[in-house]
């Protein structure tokens, strides 16, 4: 018989308010149920309210770990990407969200964690590098999946912005597959300057073949190279 192996929750011993805002957070039964119900409701809205169409499903990952990346036009993007994953995979997939937007108050943090299953990236606290290293470790060793928007923020013009090197820091030198996606129509359905989404705007998701950055060095030049390669791949998908 193999020896028993205990793996306590990564966030064990953290008070609730810290746990919700930590990139070490692990979801329990209640959060998983909340996330599943919310995902089903959003998937129904996208399918019937926004007429979501998907191209390239064959490129979707079937096992962990992986990183799903796309251009970022709207809050709807994360739901579009999450909706195409199987329920079993989705429980282990975390959208990476800006801590200073989605985790500012305890209520917002609880909603982002409970419904979106999001993990925060703190952009303005100077702890970004360390946090990304923790996320990289989690991605490889847990393993899990991430949904990531390498532009770092939603476009205000509808055009894709330059990709940040943070995405490269997550995957450079690893064999974790990165799946490039392009989302069209979410800018019209829920742009950054609108408070609520509008229904009736067709959304199209195009999924490209998985990319590997195992050959890329895990340092500054490698991170930029990975970001730039991915940016070109997503630009190609937009055509």
């Amino acid at each position, binding site marked *: 018989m193999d020896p028993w192996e*205990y793996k306590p929750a990564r966030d064990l*011993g953290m008070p609730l308010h810290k746990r919700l805002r930590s990139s070490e957070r692990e979801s329990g039964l209640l959060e998983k149920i909340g996330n599943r119900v919310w995902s089903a409701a959003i998937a129904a809205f996208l399918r019937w309210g926004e007429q979501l169409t998907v191209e390239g499903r064959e490129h979707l990952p079937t096992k962990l770990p992986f990183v799903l990346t796309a251009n970022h036009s709207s809050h709807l993007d994360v739901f579009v990407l999450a909706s195409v994953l199987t329920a079993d995979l989705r429980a282990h997939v975390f959208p990476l969200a800006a801590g200073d937007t989605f985790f500012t108050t305890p209520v917002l943090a609880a909603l982002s964690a409970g419904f979106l299953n999001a993990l925060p990236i703190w952009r303005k606290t100077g702890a970004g590098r360390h946090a990304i290293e923790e996320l990289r470790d989690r991605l490889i060793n847990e393993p899990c999946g991430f949904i990531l928007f390498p532009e770092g923020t939603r476009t205000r013009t509808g055009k894709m912005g330059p990709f940040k090197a943070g995405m490269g820091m997550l995957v450079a030198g690893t064999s974790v597959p990165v799946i490039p996606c392009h989302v069209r129509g979410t800018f019209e359905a829920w742009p950054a300057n609108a408070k609520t989404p509008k229904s009736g705007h067709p959304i199209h998701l195009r999924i490209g073949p998985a990319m590997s950055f195992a050959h890329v060095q895990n340092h500054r030049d490698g991170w930029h190279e990975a970001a730039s390669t991915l940016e070109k791949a997503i630009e190609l998908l937009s055509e």
Partner: protein
Amino acid sequence: MDDATRQRLFGWSHAFDHPLVKGAVIAVSVALLFAPILFWTLTATNKLNPTLRKELWARYFSWLLLVPMMFVPILLGAAWTIAAVCIMSLLCYREFARATGIFRDSITSGVVVVGILAVYFAVADNWYAFFVALTPLTIAVIAATALIRDQPKGYIQRVALGVLAFLLFGVCYGHLGFFANDQNFRSLLVWLIINVELNDIFAYIIEKKMGHRKLAPNTSPNKTLAGSIGALVLTTTLTALTGHLVFRGSGLDRVHHLIILGLLMSATGQLGDLTLSSIKRDLGIKDWAATFPGHGGLLDRFNSMLFAAPAIFHYVGYYQGIGLDQWRRIFTGG
């Protein structure tokens, strides 16, 4: 549902009828009121080092939260008591699941939660046969549903952790809830909770003041033999004296029964504490959670109740029965 049952479940007008309940609420309130004065006096006379002072204040603020959590539902009625014990069981299971990692197995974890909820349904229904039947039934369901993923690797660990969790937090704590089916549930529960909690406090104070011989140094490094024996003597005495008020006029109101109840309460209280400490050491963690400053998690505070509740329940049940004169199967009929 007859009037007596409705009154027991939801009526709070008789909350302070029993002298022990009234006395305990006054005593605890006075203790919480005067504790800061004692801390300030000890600090002013330099009898508290900064570490101990900080720990005592943290524990005091946690007690300010814990005392109403324990007593208000009991005073409000049996339905509130059962609901509160059910929530406590679920939260304790959550701490256990996160510490052992069993929470990652959603199927086993879900079955344990459903099993715990079923136990409290049986408790609220005053359906003892179903309460008893749930142990083998839930164990069978845990073992069977663990097959769903078709992953033999780790099967024994997953099932064993699920079964242990259900037995500890469903069955053992369920006995605490089942006391609420007795007409005198308020005095029984207040007596049990106060004495089990004081048992912990007696042991803590004595091990701080005297005795160097460790009780189980690898399991719980701070516990001393003197603390354990001291708690056994003091708790047995207090339990027997207050037990006379609870069981007045019944077959249990005899010296030997009251002493046995006291010994049982102290010994099982300490065993519950040591058992959970042993699990924590095995896992390599200090506290179950960080819910209550100075205490840790709910499980760190209520571990002593795990074995004390079923032990006292069955002793009292054997000699005089619990809730036998009450309406049974309240919701299911039959």
